[in-house]
C-alpha cells in the first residue's frame, strides 16, 4: 500500500490531476471552517506529509458509524481518505478476516508505532473483566489499551465511543464505558448516532492534514462541527419564535412544517452540524423529515427522558395524578396538625399563660 507516499503522490498515482488535488484541499479546508488563507496550508501539508496510517477498531457498535462514513458528500473525498491513507485495519471494509486480518493489524501497528491514527467506534464493556466484547480471543479493553499506547491521535467515532451510547444506557448490564473513560490520552469525540459522514471524514482529514487535534469544546468535540446548536441553525426556528408548534406527527401544524418542540425535539440542547450540513449528501435531516432531533450527539441521550417529551416538561411522571392528590392530603394533614397546636396555644393565651 505504499505507506511512504504523500497523499498528493497517492492521488496523482490514482489518476487525479493537480487541479483535482487542489479542489480537494479547498473543499476540505472550507468544510473544516478554515479561512481561505489556510487553504494553501492544507495543500502544502498533503503534498509533503507522509501518508499516515489509520487503524479503525470497532467494539460495541452497530456499524452505523461506518455505514454513515461510506455515504459521504463527495465520493472523491471519501475515496481519498479511505483509499489514499492507509486504512490498515477496518473490519467492515477490509477484505481480510480472521487471523490474517489480526496479523495485518499487528503488523501495521508495529510498523507505524507512535504515528498511526486510532479511530474507534462502539463503546467498551468492562463488566466481568471485559468478557462481553471479545475479538480474536482478546477482550476489547485489552485491545484498546494496547492500540491506544501506540497511537498518535485517538478519535472516538459515534456516541457509543464518545459517551457510552446505547450499550451504556440504563441499566448498562455490561458496564459499557466511553473510550475517554478508559485511556489517558486525549480523545477527540465525534459523537452522533451516527455522526454525519462528512463530519467523520472532515475530522479525520484535519488530523491527517495538520497532525494535531482540532479545536475542541468542553466535551472534546470539534467545534468546527459541534460548535452550534441545532436550534440556532434550524430552518424551523421562526416557528418556534412565533409559538407555532406541531401538536402531532400528522396534524395541520406538522403538515405546515411547524416547530417540533412539542414533539420532543431536543434541538435547543444539542450541538451538531445536522441543520447545516444535513445527511446523505445534503438531502435532509430529521427535523426536515418531520421528526424532532433526538439529541444524539449529547451524552446520555438515551436516558434523558422520552424522545417525544418536550424539553420544557418534567420527565418524572409520579407527581401527576396520584402525586398531586397525595401531596394535597399531606398538606391538609400538616395544616390541621399545626392548627390544633395553634388552638392549644390560644387556649393557653386565654388562660393567661
Amino acid at each position, binding site marked *: 500500500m505504499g505507506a511512504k507516499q504523500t497523499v498528493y503522490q497517492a492521488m496523482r498515482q490514482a489518476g487525479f490531476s493537480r487541479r483535482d488535488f487542489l479542489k480537494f484541499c479547498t473543499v476540505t479546508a472550507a468544510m473544516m471552517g478554515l479561512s481561505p488563507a489556510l487553504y494553501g496550508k492544507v495543500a502544502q501539508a498533503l503534498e509533503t506529509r507522509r501518508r499516515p496510517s489509520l487503524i479503525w477498531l470497532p467494539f460495541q457498535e452497530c456499524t452505523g458509524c461506518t455505514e454513515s462514513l461510506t455515504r459521504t458528500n463527495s465520493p472523491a473525498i471519501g475515496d481519498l481518505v479511505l483509499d489514499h491513507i492507509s486504512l490498515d485495519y477496518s473490519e467492515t471494509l477490509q477484505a481480510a478476516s480472521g487471523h490474517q486480518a489480526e496479523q495485518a493489524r499487528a503488523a501495521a501497528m508495529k510498523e507505524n508505532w507512535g504515528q498511526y491514527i486510532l479511530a474507534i467506534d462502539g463503546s467498551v464493556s468492562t463488566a466481568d473483566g471485559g468478557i462481553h466484547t471479545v475479538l480474536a480471543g482478546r477482550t476489547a479493553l485489552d485491545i484498546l489499551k494496547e492500540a491506544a499506547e501506540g497511537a498518535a491521535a485517538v478519535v472516538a467515532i459515534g456516541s457509543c465511543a464518545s459517551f457510552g451510547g446505547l450499550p451504556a444506557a440504563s441499566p448498562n448490564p455490561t458496564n459499557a464505558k466511553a473510550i475517554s473513560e478508559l485511556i489517558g490520552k486525549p480523545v477527540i469525540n465525534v459523537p452522533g448516532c451516527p455522526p454525519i459522514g462528512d463530519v467523520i471524514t472532515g475530522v479525520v482529514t484535519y488530523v491527517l492534514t495538520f497532525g494535531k487535534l482540532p479545536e475542541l469544546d468542553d466535551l472534546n468535540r470539534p467545534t468546527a462541527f459541534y460548535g452550534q446548536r441545532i436550534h440556532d441553525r434550524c430552518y424551523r426556528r421562526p416557528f418556534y419564535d412565533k409559538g407555532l408548534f406541531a401538536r402531532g406527527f400528522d396534524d395541520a401544524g406538522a403538515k405546515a412544517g411547524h416547530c417540533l418542540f412539542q414533539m420532543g425535539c431536543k434541538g435547543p440542547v444539542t450541538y451538531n452540524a445536522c441543520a447545516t450540513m444535513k445527511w446523505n449528501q445534503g438531502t435532509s435531516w430529521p427535523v426536515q423529515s418531520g421528526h424532532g432531533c433526538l439529541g444524539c450527539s449529547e451524552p446520555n441521550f438515551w436516558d434523558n427522558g422520552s424522545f417525544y417529551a418536550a424539553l420544557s416538561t418534567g420527565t418524572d411522571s409520579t407527581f401527576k395524578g396520584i402525586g398531586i392528590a397525595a401531596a394535597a392530603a399531606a398538606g391538609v394533614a400538616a395544616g390541621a396538625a*399545626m392548627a390544633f*397546636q*395553634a388552638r392549644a*396555644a*390560644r387556649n*393557653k*393565651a*386565654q388562660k*393567661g*399563660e
Partner: protein
Amino acid sequence: MADSVTTAMNTALSKVGSKAATYLSACVHCGVCATACHYAQGSGEAKHIPIWKAELLKRQYKRRYTWLGKLRGALGLIPKTTPEMLEEWSELVFDTCSMCGRCSVVCPMGIDIPMLIRAMREGLTAAGIVPEGLKEATDRALETGSPLGATPEVFAERVAWMGDEWEQAIPVDQEGAEYLVLFSSIEIMKYPNAIGATAKILNAAGLSWTVHSKNFEGTNFGYLQGSSPKAAKMLNRVVEAAEQLKVKKVVSPECGHAYGALRWEAQNLLARDLPFTVVQIAELIDVLLSEGKIRVNREAKGGKATYHDPCQIGRRGGLFEEPRRVLHAIVPDANFSEMTENRMDNWCCGGGGGVISIPRADELRLKSFGMKKGQIEQVGAQRVVSTCSNCRLAFDSAFEHYGMKTEFVSLVELVAGNLEK
C-alpha cells in the same frame, strides 16, 4: 401576677382565630393602607401606616401559632415584645387609629385592619396600658352607665327640659312600646336638642316609643377600648332594657360606634340571638318618610350643604343612601354638593374610635382633619350634614381650630326643623 407584656400579648393572641390569622399572614407590605389613612397622611410619619399598628400581634402570632414562626422565634429572628413597645404601640393603636376601616377598603389583600387593631386594643386594655381620657371615660361608663357623667338623674332632667322646650311628650319606661330609643352621652350632655328633635319626629309619625330611665346610653366605651367583656356588659344593659320593656326595635342614636356595636356585633359579643332588631335613627326616618308617616318641607334657604358619611354608619354600618334620601327631601339639589371621595371612600373626621376622648391625641387628630378640610373646601360647603354626634364633636373642635365658618348640622335636628305641620 403576670407581667404586662404577657397579659397584653396573651389577651391579644386569644382573639386570633381563622380570620385574624388569615389577615396577619396576608400582608404583603405594599404600603397602600398608609395612603388611605387620614392620620398617616396628616402626620406624614412612616410609623402611622395602619398595618404597622398590628405589628406586635403579627410577631406574637408567628412566634406562637406557626411552626416556621416558632423556629424563627427560637433562632431569635422575631423581636420579642418589651414594655417599651407596649407603650409605643398603645399610642399607635389608640391615639392614631379611629377604626374607620378606610385602610381595609384599599388594601389589595382585603385585610380588615380594624379587626386586628381591636385585638391589639383588647390586649393593651387587659394590661391596663390605655391612654388618659379613654381610660377614665370607660371606667366611668362601666360604673355609672355614662362616660360623660350623664347619670339617670341628669338624663331625667334633660328629658324634662327638652320635653318642655320642644313641647313633646317623651315616654319613659313604657312597657310594650314598639321602639326603645337610646341616646349618646354626647347628645345628652352637649347637644340635648337631639332629644327634643327625636321626640318631635317620632311623635309626628305616631310611633309607639319609649326611653329607659336607667339604661338609656347608646355609646359603648368598652367597645371603643377594645375590651370584649366591658363591651358585652354595656350591651347587656341595652338588652336588659329592651327585654324588660318588651320592645320590638331598638333605635340607635346619632352615634357611629353605637350602631356598629348594636347592629353588627351584639349577637356575637353576647353569643346569643336578640329578640329585637336594631335601626339607626336616620334609617328609621328614611322609612317613616317613605311610608308617608311624616312629611318634610323643602327648605327655602340655607347655606350650601354637603353630607359626611360617619365611618361606623356608612362604610362599616351599611347606611349610605338612607340618610341621603332624608337629606335630599329637605335640601334642594342645587344647594347640595357631594364631596369627592364619599360613601365608601369618605375620609374619617378623626375623632372616632375613642380618639376624641384622648387629650394627648388632639394635635394629630386635628392634623388628620386636614383631609376632611380639603374636601369641604373643595365643594365650598357652608354646612356639613351628618348623623353622628361624635363626628359633630370632632368637626366642631376642628372648625374652631382652623377658624372655619362651616357649620355641622345634625340630620335629626334638620328633619325636626323642617317637619311639615
